[in-house]
């Protein structure tokens, strides 16, 4: 039995369909990742799963409880760390945890012990009696993760858990998440738009414009890209792309331009044994090559291949408008 089962879930905000009939299952003990750009429908899906939003249609079952019919049972089964902080800044860290323990009915006899343990885990024991308003962003996030675990949830939802945090704190938080999975067999459901973060997941659902475009392990997803990724900067990308297609039969794509006025900032293609191909390319191709970059495929490449656009592509087009609406919708 899967811990989460989602069937044909949709959510509309007015005319905008934020989630377009997605289905997936999450197994117990997994670290399941939702990967996609801002506004792809990640937070909307999480909000439905944690009973903050009702779906427009479709079904979601968590720990054998339907999120619409049994919201209280679902809430008891989950821990949540939101994208935006949700602490009472005028209480101390300890008081925030006590409030949480009480409201989730943690037995009084266990309360102090559990609070002590989670505080140690996130290394906040020494600052537990400080008001949260005096905490840094990273400390707040760590406190929220500690709070999310206090009632031993079956599933811990982490919505962009490390957004806006420095790399050191990000690593720190990931160490906690991995420990948790090992010690408590907690299922972790997280959303992210950081590719390197998604690599930590057991399985990843790639989501874009409200649809799941792929669902697999990070290594299988990367295998889809096939071989290495070779990126070239040339004097004229269009001509270079055409030549490579004709002479080598390669499927060459343009790298979306980062600056105004140019169409592309290089070309890229996938190829087996890219390191051996480079000498051949230089010898045989009559191209004005400025630079060559060879690398193993990353989830960025997977995302680009699956959706046709980069994950952090932020341009003033229809999609930005769409995303701005999504952001309003999830408040």
């Amino acid at each position, binding site marked *: 039995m899967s811990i989460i089962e989602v069937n044909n879930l949709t959510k509309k905000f007015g005319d905008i369909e934020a989630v377009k009939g997605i289905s997936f299952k999450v197994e117990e003990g997994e670290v399941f990742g939702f990967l996609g750009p801002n506004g792809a429908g990640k937070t909307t899906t999480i909000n439905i799963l*944690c*009973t*903050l*939003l009702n779906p427009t249609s479709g079904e979601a079952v968590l720990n054998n409880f339907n999120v619409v019919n049994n919201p*209280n*049972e679902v*809430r*008891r089964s*989950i821990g*949540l760390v*939101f994208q*935006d*902080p*949700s*602490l*009472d*800044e*005028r*209480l101390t860290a300890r*008081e925030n945890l006590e*409030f*949480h323990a*009480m*409201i*989730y*009915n943690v037995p009084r006899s266990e309360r102090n012990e559990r609070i002590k343990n989670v505080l140690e885990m996130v290394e906040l024991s020494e600052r537990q009696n400080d008001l949260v308003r005096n905490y840094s962003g990273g400390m707040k996030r760590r406190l929220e993760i500690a709070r999310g675990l206090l009632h031993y949830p079956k599933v811990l939802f982490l919505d962009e858990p490390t957004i806006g945090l420095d790399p050191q704190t990000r690593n720190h938080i990931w160490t906690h998440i991995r420990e948790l999975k090992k010690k408590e067999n907690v299922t972790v459901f997280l959303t992210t738009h950081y590719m390197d973060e998604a690599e930590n997941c057991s399985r990843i659902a790639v989501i874009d414009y409200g649809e799941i475009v792929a669902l697999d392990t990070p290594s299988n997803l990367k295998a889809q890209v096939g071989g290495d990724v070779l990126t070239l900067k040339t004097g004229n990308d269009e001509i270079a792309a055409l030549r490579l297609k004709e002479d080598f039969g390669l499927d060459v794509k343009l790298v979306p331009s980062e600056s105004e006025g140019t169409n592309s900032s290089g070309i890229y293609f996938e190829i087996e044994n890219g390191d051996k191909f480079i000498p051949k390319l230089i010898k045989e191709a009559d191209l004005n090559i400025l630079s060559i970059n060879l690398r193993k495929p990353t989830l960025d490449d997977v995302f680009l291949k699956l959706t046709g656009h980069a994950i952090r592509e932020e341009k003033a087009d229809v999609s930005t408008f769409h995303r701005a609406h999504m952001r309003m919708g999830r*408040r």
Partner: protein
Amino acid sequence: MISLRGVYIIWLRDIKRFLRDRARIIAAMAQPALYLFVLGTGLGAAIGRSGDYIKFIYPGIIGMTLLFTSIFSAISIVWDREFGFLKEILVAPISRSTVALGKAFGGSTIAMIQGTMLLIFAPFVGVSLSFLMVLKLFAVMFLIAFSLTSMGIVVAARLKTMEGFQMIMNFLMMPLFLLSGAMFPLKGLPEWMNFLVKMDPLTYGIDALRYIVIGIHSYSLPYSLVMVLSFGAVMISFAIYAFNRQN
């Protein structure tokens, strides 16, 4: 659906926050003191009945404090929304009705504490309070505070940001205060104003307070209490309804 334990937890948090904020408690005493001693003395002198007038407005000022504190406490829900803490409450495994009730009791307790603190002004305005009077005042103050906090919750559930607060101040709190007869007797008023005065639930609350403190009143005590009680029942129902529709 309503869990007493849940109500207690929500209540406890509001009380903890209130007791921590000593500056706010003291500041909340300053405004009523100004109204009572400056406005009371000034207006009293102008109508040539200085001592009587201060005594007359004293229950009205207690009512004013209950009004302001109740609404402010309820409006803290909007702060909770802005700071994100409301989400923590809304995803907790307690019903929305429980949250609304907890908030209503929390706000009314805080308002009652502030109202009770004003009782130390009694000797300075020439009112002597017996133990029984204080007990009666507690009961009436609780009724008033509970109704007003519930009303505040209804408003706060709709208010998405604190920017709307000025509107609440100008179009809800000040009219409720000024029309309640806190500052003047409800006699010989023009018909339009008489109507508005009767529509103001605080009118009956303050009338009941005044009945107990100095024996002057426009309505009978049972009538006033029934009016406050009915208003409170309607408002807490609305508040529970509004909270159940929160997303």
